[in-house]
């Protein structure tokens, strides 16, 4: 692995046309690779690539996924690759491991791993590099780890494959590694299967398996995207620790807040090309390319949002903390009944237990009370497992409460039999997290919307016209009417899901993490749409999210949920600037980026709550 012929290999590389380059002032070669263009690379450069192109297929249907990308990864440095999904980030990451797939054609002017010319690698040489020199950590550890094997064996596999440890001696090495990535009780955890671990522990196990053969560089592909804010913060801390220990990182992410926390340099990717690159502070503070500016604009919490004063936020000084919160909330809504419109949804002392394995009783929703008025947007925040979705199920009448009750529009809701409830179901609708799994993939958009329209007795011949009106309402057009969900982008799918929810002319939308699976820029569009629709149609919205920044964008009032209880409630600005409950503070400080920094620093800006 100590090839000395640094310059000797260059002439053998396939001739590549010189890049014309996008008209950005800072193009890729001057960015991360700025110090290594003409001179021999610095001693610490582990992976060096210049002019990388990846094409899929051939002929007219060819897709040019990555165009002329150059970067250098060095030990102890973190380069971030930012862009929307489909911008070619992941393809680039895989191409660096020689794993772009059988249909891909990868060309480059220069691709050197540990001084060896990787363009001349055969399968055997690639295998020697993968895991040993460059490791890969993918996004969702639940699917990125073999679900049928214990994590210990997955980790040991890499050690054995590279001949570092004999198969029967892997036990202590695996445990040491699990301990290094912060997994408690490593001896026992090594025998766990991925589905038995929480999201954070799974991601740690995946990182451990990528570290097993002691690579110098890790390619981390969206390492925190599917995780809660606080888990995300801990994983980022782990990656930061690895970086400090001397591992080079290529951080692929669409989340600029994550990038800001970890990266030294950043390359912004758009449609396969790097449009802007440079030190992270520079690029984020003074973006030059329009795409980078748009990407930064889209980050929730970064925009200057002017809180709209509504009746709901006028509750003023609420000193409710913890247990008193729910009671205080109720008293407040009692007084407010005239101010903010009629109470549409009243949840009183709702309780729901689940019976787990071996007779363990778990309380998913514990004595929760709140009121949602017509036209109000209420946020519900908490980590996964805090009971948010169960509460949504109670509100939707899909789960029967074990105690307490839910009233809708002044009528009993949870207490009525389903037969009676069905006629009223159109007044409240769900916007799901992942519309792709909430749609029948074989149905066209017209049929999906038609089914919802049939529920409020729209005649068959009128449904298409109605469906089109709905699509236009959510910013889509007639061209989308005959598409199937798989032919739509993530944002378009979520728009169709909103259109379907609106089809029955509801008064209440329950949005269960509607934007958590979307890119930041798409996320911003969907949030704008929701805000506009709620305003123009006078909808009440119960907005469930683990993302505090998103809730702050959209909601006037927020409920913070932990272990099935509402621990804090109040106007969103007050909760964010002056959190009372320790858990809220913990949630806030876990958010990477601007909001989190404020909370971490403990310097709560004196944003006057009186402005409401």
């Amino acid at each position, binding site marked *: 692995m100590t090839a000395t012929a640094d310059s000797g290999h260059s002439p053998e590389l396939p001739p590549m046309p010189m890049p014309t380059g996008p008209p950005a002032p800072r193009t890729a070669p001057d960015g991360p690779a700025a110090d290594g263009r003409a001179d021999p690379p610095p001693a610490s450069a582990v992976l060096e690539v210049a002019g990388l192109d990846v094409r899929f297929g051939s002929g007219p249907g060819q897709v040019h996924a990555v165009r002329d990308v150059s970067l250098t990864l060095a030990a102890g440095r973190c380069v971030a690759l930012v862009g929307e999904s489909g911008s070619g980030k992941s393809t680039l990451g*895989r191409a660096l491991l020689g794993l772009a797939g059988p249909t891909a054609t990868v060309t480059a002017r220069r691709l050197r791993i540990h001084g060896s010319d990787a363009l001349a690698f055969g399968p055997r040489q690639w295998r*020697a590099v993968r895991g*040993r020199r460059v490791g*890969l950590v993918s996004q969702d550890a639940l699917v*990125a780890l073999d679900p*049928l094997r214990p994590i210990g064996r997955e980790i040991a596999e890499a050690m054995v494959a590279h001949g570092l440890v004999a198969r029967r001696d892997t036990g202590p090495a695996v445990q040491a590694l699990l301990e290094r990535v912060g997994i408690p009780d490593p001896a026992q955890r090594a025998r766990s299967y991925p589905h038995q671990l929480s999201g954070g522990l799974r991601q740690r196990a995946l990182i451990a398996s990528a570290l097993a053969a002691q690579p110098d560089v890790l390619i981390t592909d969206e390492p925190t995207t599917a995780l809660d804010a606080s888990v995300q913060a801990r994983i980022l801390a782990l990656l930061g620790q690895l970086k400090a220990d001397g591992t080079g990182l290529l951080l692929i992410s669409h989340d600029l807040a994550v990038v800001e926390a970890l990266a030294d340099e950043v390359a912004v990717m758009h449609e396969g090309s790097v449009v802007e690159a440079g030190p992270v502070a520079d690029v984020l503070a003074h973006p030059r390319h329009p795409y980078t500016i748009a990407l930064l604009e889209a980050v929730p919490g970064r925009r200057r949002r002017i809180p709209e004063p509504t009746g709901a936020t006028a509750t003023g000084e609420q000193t409710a903390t913890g247990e008193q919160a729910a009671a205080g909330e109720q008293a407040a809504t009692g007084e407010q009944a005239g101010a903010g419109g009629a109470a549409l949804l009243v949840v009183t002392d709702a309780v729901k237990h689940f019976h787990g*394995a071996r*007779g363990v009783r778990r309380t998913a929703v514990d004595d929760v009370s709140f009121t949602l008025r017509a036209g109000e947007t209420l946020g519900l925040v908490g980590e996964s497992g805090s009971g948010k979705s169960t509460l949504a199920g109670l509100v939707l009448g899909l789960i029967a409460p074990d105690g307490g009750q839910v009233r809708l529009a002044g009528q009993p809701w949870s207490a009525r039999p389903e037969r009676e409830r069905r006629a009223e179901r159109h007044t409240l609708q769900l916007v799901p997290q992942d519309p792709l799994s909430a749609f029948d993939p074989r149905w066209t958009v017209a049929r999906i919307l038609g089914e919802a329209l049939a529920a409020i007795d729209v005649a068959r011949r009128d449904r298409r016209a109605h469906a089109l009106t709905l699509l236009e309402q959510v910013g889509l057009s007639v061209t989308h009417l005959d598409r199937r969900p798989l032919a739509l982008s993530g944002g378009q799918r979520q728009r169709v899901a909103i259109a379907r929810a609106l089809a029955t002319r509801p008064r209440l939308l329950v949005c269960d993490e509607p934007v958590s699976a979307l890119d930041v820029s798409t996320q911003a569009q969907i949030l704008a749409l929701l805000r506009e629709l709620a305003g123009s149609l006078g909808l009440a919205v119960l907005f469930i999210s683990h993302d505090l920044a998103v809730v702050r964008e959209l909601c006037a009032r927020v409920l913070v949920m932990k272990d099935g209880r509402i621990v804090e409630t109040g106007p969103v600005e007050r909760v964010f600037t002056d959190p009372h409950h320790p858990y809220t503070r913990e949630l806030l400080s876990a958010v990477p980026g601007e909001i989190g920094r404020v909370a971490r620093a403990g310097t709560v800006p004196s944003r006057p709550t009186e402005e409401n």
Partner: protein
Amino acid sequence: MRSAIRPVVVRLLGAVGVVWGAVTLAFGVLQLIPGDPVNAIVGTNALVGPEQRALLRERYDLDQPLFTQYLDHLGRLATGRLGDSYQLQQPVWSVITDQLWPTVELALWASLLAVVLSVAVTVLTSGRSRWPRRVSSLLELLVVSTPAFWLGILLLTVFSFHLGWLPVSDTGDPRSLVLPVVTLGLPIAAILTQVMREGLLTALDAPFVLTARARGLAEHSVRSRHALRHSALPALTLAGWFVGTLLGGAVIVENVFARPGLGRVALQAVADRDFPVVQGVVALSAVVFVVVSAVVDVLYAVVDPRLRRRTGMVAA
């Protein structure tokens, strides 16, 4: 402790229900076959007067109302008595046990052939290049769409009559087992291969395979350690069909190759209206099905750790 016993009890009750259903159905269907069972008892050529017929009826309880006969039958089965064969004049139990081994031998070899063949073909034809897969798919389609008796006759014609390599019928020579096993196992192998290859290709597209490759694993380890186990899951689902095909196929194969066995006995018994034998075979196959599906459930949990809690087993 109670939560561990409960699924087992539910399972056993279900098993009893399945056997009862199969036996009841067989009883009902046999009543619909025209002809007098007394003929089966006395034989078609015997000259028997009406008095003797009445006597026989009484002896075999055929003069009782249908419902009483049914209850008697269930009662006997519940206590493990299968009755006497009308035709062979010996206990059904001994008829079945005499003929069991040749069928079991045939079925086991055929299963082994099917599993080994399908795993081998799956692994060999799921590579990057497409043509082995295409050739194999074509052959699979051909084998699946060929009726079993026709396949048997074809193999006999080629290997026994023309080439003379293998014996035509059962001679006690192990070689006489080859053609029946191939006839029975080949169609099963063809279907299993299709299902497993589909599963293997799906598994090879999964993210964890990318992770495994990114660890520096060689392609054969990726396949054998990761993907193959995933492809076994859909194949396990076919176990019920597998057993059904073995039992049904045994009837055809034993007749084509003139082998002794349960299949042949069952066919003969149906033709002769030999009720007790048919009932015995039906009850036996119901028990076999129940046992196999229980074994498959355990196998599922062995292969897929995600299912362990649901089946009442504790994840190690």
